[in-house]
């Protein structure tokens, strides 16, 4: 009998800090066991630029919320190309730290950071270049933009939590995180 087809997994970090990706790597040598079951499509670890460029992806994992137009674009691309989409970490689940700007006016924030703050080089202005993705008025969790199938909260979720969740999922059962593995901080 042939070995079962490896599942294709893609990952991305949007308005996150890469902490969730670091935590993913924190599953340590179990990564080798995981690689028996999966292969990577687009991730910060490969050089594939577009999700699903090499055919449909089974599982998409996204860290970070949505804070700019490019995030929206990448997220929609993932949704269109992944059978299962997982929201990984506090920022993707409820906006997290970046969303703590949500009650402030975006123009005021940009001005404070780029023109009125002390210690700026003279002539510093709010960046305005067609190459830069436009910042959204508010940061949003992923599920406010596309349908999300599973959520793993935590800042970041521990390697053990990610491992437990993924192995449950790969075994075809509803993922559970018991006491100590589920956390919001």
């Amino acid at each position, binding site marked *: 009998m042939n070995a079962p087809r490896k599942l294709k997994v893609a990952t991305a970090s949007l308005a996150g800090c890469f902490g969730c990706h670091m935590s993913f790597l924190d599953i340590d040598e179990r990564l080798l066991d995981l690689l028996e079951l999966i292969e990577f499509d687009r991730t910060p670890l490969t050089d594939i630029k577009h999700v699903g460029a090499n055919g449909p992806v089974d599982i998409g994992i996204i860290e970070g919320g949505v804070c700019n137009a490019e995030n929206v674009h990448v997220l929609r691309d993932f949704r269109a190309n992944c059978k299962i989409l997982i*929201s990984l970490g*506090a920022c993707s*689940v*409820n*906006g*997290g*730290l970046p*969303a*703590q700007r*949500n*009650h402030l006016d975006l123009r005021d924030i940009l001005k404070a950071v780029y023109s009125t703050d002390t210690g700026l080089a003279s002539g510093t202005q709010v960046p305005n270049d067609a190459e830069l993705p436009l910042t959204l008025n*508010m940061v*949003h*969790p992923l*599920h*406010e933009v596309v349908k*999300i199938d*599973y*959520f*793993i*909260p935590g*800042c970041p979720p521990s390697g053990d939590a990610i491992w437990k969740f993924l192995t449950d999922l790969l075994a075809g059962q509803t993922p*559970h*995180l018991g*006491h*100590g593995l*589920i*956390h*919001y*901080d």
Partner: protein
Amino acid sequence: MMSDTFNIDGQEIPFTPGQSVMQAALTAGVFIPHLCYHPEFRPHGSCKLCTVKVNGRPASSCTLPAAAGMEVESNTPEILDKRRSLLQMLLVEGNHFCPSCEKSGNCQLQALGYELEVFTPHFNQFYPNRPVDASHPDILLDLNRCILCELCIRASAEVDGKNVFSLSGRGITKHLIVNAESGKLGDTDFALTDKAAQVCPVGVILPKRIGFAVPIGQRHYDAAPFSAHVDEFKPTAASQGERS
């Protein structure tokens, strides 16, 4: 005088007349989720986390008097789902960023989220614009996390005799206010030793200068889940029969 019993999910629970379903359950070591219930105060019945079904109808177990022969459903998939939805609504209604909250690890809302495996707030976030009041020398008031359980209001009025807090507004505009002309906590006689400074189940009323002092792993709900802490919530002798 344990004369009568009722049952919760098939388990017989003894009770004394005057006890609520919640009080009898906790006394018997049976956990029912709760947020606005506090063993030392009259029940408030506002958070609805303690909802159970009695003879097929929903009821708040913290306000419902126990009666002989009641058939109470608590941990059924249907009720657990409803409780999850309530927690999710509380989470999106305020600003709950646990990684930067000093109450994290000691918070009942968070601990219940873990207990019921709430992986996501599910609903759209409100991201309300709520004030933080740092005017008091010893206590920080961060209203972003208030769930309107009124425990601080009850404690300040009934135990401290100070009436430092009240509610203002109705429906979705309802919010906690400080009874001072300026609206600032620093302009009241609120003190760290007040009962009202000890009862907030979430991270609103926070003693200053001790934030994050206890490392992760040693916080109140790190070692064991909320449901393993039933003993802390057993009704005190004083609160028995004091229900109104």
